């Protein structure tokens, strides 16, 4: 029953947040980048998806917002915080809806999340810069979809190891 304790939940959440920040940093120091503005591989999205599937939707939303803020501060991309906040919020909400309708596996949810992240960033850019940024939607959408598939793969591989991806209060934990 100890998995129900709020302390454990908070510790787990913090641990995952740290993991997501490390992944953001690793992504930032990679020697190659995707040549489309605003589009990244989105390693941190792996952890976000994990939180969405093993914790609750409110946790995932909080996770996304905190990650966007903290990685903005840590990586010194203050100008990007608003963009990634818009992207994250839209992505988490969309992924939560898709997950809820039960038609899609984590692949569909991951890809839709990636595309929505791009769309959210374009929303932010069209507000801050100029509405003409929407002309980049095809490029951003298609490259984001590809990134969504790439970030889904590690999750899939992790899922093969039983017990790792048990939800909070899942069957393995309830045995205790």
């Amino acid at each position, binding site marked *: 029953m100890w998995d129900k304790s709020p302390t454990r939940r908070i510790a787990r959440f913090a641990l995952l947040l740290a993991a997501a920040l490390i992944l953001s940093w690793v992504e930032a120091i990679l020697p190659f*980048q995707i*040549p*489309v*503005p*605003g589009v990244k591989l989105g390693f941190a999205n792996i952890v976000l*998806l*994990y939180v969405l*599937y*093993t914790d609750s939707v409110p946790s995932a939303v909080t996770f996304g917002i905190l990650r966007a803020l903290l990685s903005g501060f840590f990586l010194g*991309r203050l*100008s*990007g915080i608003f*963009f990634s906040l818009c992207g994250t919020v839209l992505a988490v909400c969309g992924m939560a809806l*898709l997950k809820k309708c039960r*038609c*899609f*596996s*984590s*692949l*569909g949810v991951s*890809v*839709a999340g990636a*595309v929505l992240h791009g769309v959210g960033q374009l929303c932010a*850019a069209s507000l*801050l*810069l*100029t509405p*003409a*940024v929407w*002309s*980049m*939607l*095809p*490029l951003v*959408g*298609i490259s984001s*979809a590809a990134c969504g*598939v790439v970030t889904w793969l590690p*999750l899939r591989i992790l*899922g093969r190891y039983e017990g790792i*991806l048990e939800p909070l209060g899942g069957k393995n934990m309830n045995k205790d």
Partner: protein
Amino acid sequence: MNQKVRIWDFLLIAALVAACACAWLIPRETGASATVSVDGEIVAVLPLSQEGEFLLPMGGRVVVRDGKVSLCDAVCEDKLCENMGEISEEGQTILCLPLRVSVVISGEVDAYVG
């Protein structure tokens, strides 16, 4: 998370990609001028018919050559804006998110007043 991938996943991905591809296929015409904005405010309008250069206040140049526009010597950290290459069709855009600069091609020359 361990569910099997379903046909719906592929349909969803196909639908998203198709929607983006459709937006790509809309024919565009060659533009007449390039509007340079910083922080959402227009700072310059360059006609594509003549060669020219605009120095951005924070560093970097918007260059018009052979009817095509590109951004050079940007001072941002990622240089994605430089890598976007040359644009010349109506609606095409060069963006630099770190510098908050956008260059948009528009159809009319007299779009800029004042």
